[in-house]
């Protein structure tokens, strides 16, 4: 009780003292860069900014939702989604020209370049909710030393097929070069990439029907379960919530399915030779993109958000963290000096340019369909977990999930 009171008092003091409150979650070594840019804003605008830095998982979203619902959101918040804030966020459309000097349509095209779903949301809602900040892509990192020990050389100009990838994993395991061939992030979002390369999806790409129980989707889950059964993937990640990155960092797993947001951290931590491979495919090539937004709730917040996403600041932020800046006019202005990161960045960008996105937009961004998926993330995770834990067969797990999601979709209509 005392803790709650103290927290409320602190929050109240923060809101009273600050001109602008920025709610932030740290994702890699980004806090110092953001702080220096905020300090620059304070100096040029003469406004006091207070940063509420909170852990993202479990606490961040519910807190922001509670604040928004209570009518006292921060002025601006860093977020991974924009849909939940559509009702509460300030409409940026009338403010864009005032603070950026760009025509609205020009600005919208510029910032939607890597996040086409952003424009789609604007067209459906008639309101600009948030600003695309940085984009990232799913990536498969690999330990070059383990690959060398196992006698495997991944192709440089094309991705592996799923069968070739599986054969490489078996070879790593059998050679004893590493205890595990692969470690896979514990996230339904990350799992979706596997669904897409098998030709499946939660929704079909047009968002017309749920396809998580299609033969392609079930085949993807069967493959995932097989990798666990054959000890090619550590079971503890998906079964008991162990941290996946440690397996790759400690050299226990030869490959790691994650994303380019890990680059800055890995550059500091990895003590071995490493790189990235393109996403293997079964029926179609697909690489998922995601990223962060900055969502202003007040005009003061919009001013800060547009400052953080101006050319100079976004180029600095993306360049130092090796992320893709959400501005088309910055696509050739981000300079990465580290040769290892440059090589990985080139592989990921090539993969991104050559691949489709599967049902990415329908599953995770389209306001008409993604709400069902976003709302039921943990139900989707539970279905995958149930199959890995052998509580259900892959077919049964996805059929039950499809039934549930269809009921949810019907209810939402």
């Amino acid at each position, binding site marked *: *009780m005392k803790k*709650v*009171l103290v927290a409320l008092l602190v929050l109240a003091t923060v809101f009273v003292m600050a001109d602008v409150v920025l709610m932030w979650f740290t994702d890699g070594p980004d806090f110092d860069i953001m702080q220096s840019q905020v300090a620059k804003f304070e100096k040029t605008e003469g406004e006091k900014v207070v940063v509420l830095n909170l852990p993202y998982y*479990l606490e961040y979203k*519910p807190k922001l*939702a*509670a604040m928004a*619902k209570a009518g006292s959101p921060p002025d601006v918040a860093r977020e991974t989604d924009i849909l*939940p804030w559509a009702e509460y966020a300030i409409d940026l459309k009338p403010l864009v020209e005032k603070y950026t000097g760009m025509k609205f349509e020009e600005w919208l095209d510029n910032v939607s370049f890597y996040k086409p779903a952003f424009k789609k949301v604007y067209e459906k809602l008639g309101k600009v909710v948030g600003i695309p900040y940085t984009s990232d892509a799913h990536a498969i990192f690999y330990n070059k030393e383990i690959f060398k020990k196992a006698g495997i050389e991944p192709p440089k100009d094309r991705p592996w097929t799923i069968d070739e990838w599986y054969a490489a994993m078996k070879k790593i395991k059998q050679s004893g070069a590493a*205890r595990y061939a692969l470690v896979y992030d514990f996230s339904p979002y990350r799992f979706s990439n596997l669904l897409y390369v098998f030709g499946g999806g939660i929704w079909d790409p047009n968002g017309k029907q749920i396809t998580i129980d299609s033969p392609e989707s079930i085949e993807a889950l069967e493959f995932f379960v097989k990798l666990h059964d054959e000890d090619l993937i*550590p*079971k*503890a990640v998906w*079964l*008991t*919530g*162990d941290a996946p990155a*440690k*397996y790759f960092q*400690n050299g*226990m797993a030869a490959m790691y399915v994650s994303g380019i947001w890990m680059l800055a951290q890995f550059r500091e931590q990895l003590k071995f030779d490493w790189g990235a491979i393109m996403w293997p495919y079964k029926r179609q090539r697909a690489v998922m993109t995601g990223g962060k937004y900055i969502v202003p709730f007040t005009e003061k917040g919009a001013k800060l958000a547009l400052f953080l996403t101006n050319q100079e600041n976004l180029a600095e932020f993306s360049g130092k963290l090796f992320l893709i800046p959400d501005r088309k006019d910055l696509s050739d202005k981000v300079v990465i000096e580290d040769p290892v990161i440059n090589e990985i960045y080139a592989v990921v960008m090539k993969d991104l340019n050559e691949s489709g996105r599967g049902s990415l937009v329908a599953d995770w961004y389209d306001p008409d369909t993604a709400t069902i998926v976003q*709302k*039921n*993330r*943990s*139900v989707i995770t539970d279905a995958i*977990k*149930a199959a*890995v*834990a*052998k*509580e259900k067969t892959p077919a049964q797990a996805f059929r039950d999930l499809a039934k549930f999601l269809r009921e949810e979709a019907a209810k939402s209509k």
Partner: protein
Amino acid sequence: MRVCREGKPSRFAKTGGMPLNKQLMAWLFLLPNLLIFCIFIVTPALSSFYFSFTDYDMLTFSGKFIGVTNFKNLLQPSSDFVRALLRTLIYTVTVVPLVFICSLGLSIMTTSDFFYGKPFLRALFYWPWLLSPSIIGISWKWFLDYDAGLINTVLMKLGQNPVPWLIDKRLAFISVTLVTIWNVAGYFMVMFNAALTTIPNEVYEAAALDGANRWVRFWKIIFPLLKPTSVLVVVLATIMTMRNFEIIYVFTAGGPGTATTMVAQRIYHTAFMERRLGLASAMSVILFCILIVLSLLQFKILEEEK
């Protein structure tokens, strides 16, 4: 009723012997805590009763009244909640007798004349109870982790295969059970210690004179005299076990799959991961009813003892 000499009722009569201004003062002193208690305990508790009849959703922070639908859905034989409830019952039925036996055993050990360093042993056995549940969960995970745990690392150094302590469903359940016992046995040991030290020495001496050996003395004298404490220990251990959440959540995250997902975690998962507060509130109400029945049972048994 107190009366004054003239036969009129005293001004203290209606206030239980305390002047009204003093009573008011007492209430004023109680008020801050009472307010906090009402705002942060009573109000949320009452709201959860209300929410249990709604489909309140924490993503949109809205919901409508749906009657007993939540309860109907939850009590379907194939529902995840019923499975978690059954799992919790099995866990409770396993943990409580073992906790009882272990804590009584530790208590006898730390009060007996046959052991040296009893104060040290008492502190050692009580120490796990003082640790934060999260620390317990993390520490045991470090010991039992399949790939990087201390025990498996030693086993592998000795040329043995690692044991899937937390990955195999049965072993995970056993691990959770043992860690729970390790955590709470010391707490109940203290209760038994208090009860054992109140048994007069004369009783033991009289039994010894009558030729009763240690075994007979334990079963015929000590155990019956410990009955009120035993009942308390069983009821408290049952309530504690049924509400257990933190250790299991950190230790196994309820896995593998749902093998160690108990009711409390199911409620947390439904409320804060699935954000279905209405459904989670209905689960809480059911758990509350079960716990209230157990508590009433405790009071009834203790009353009969008196």
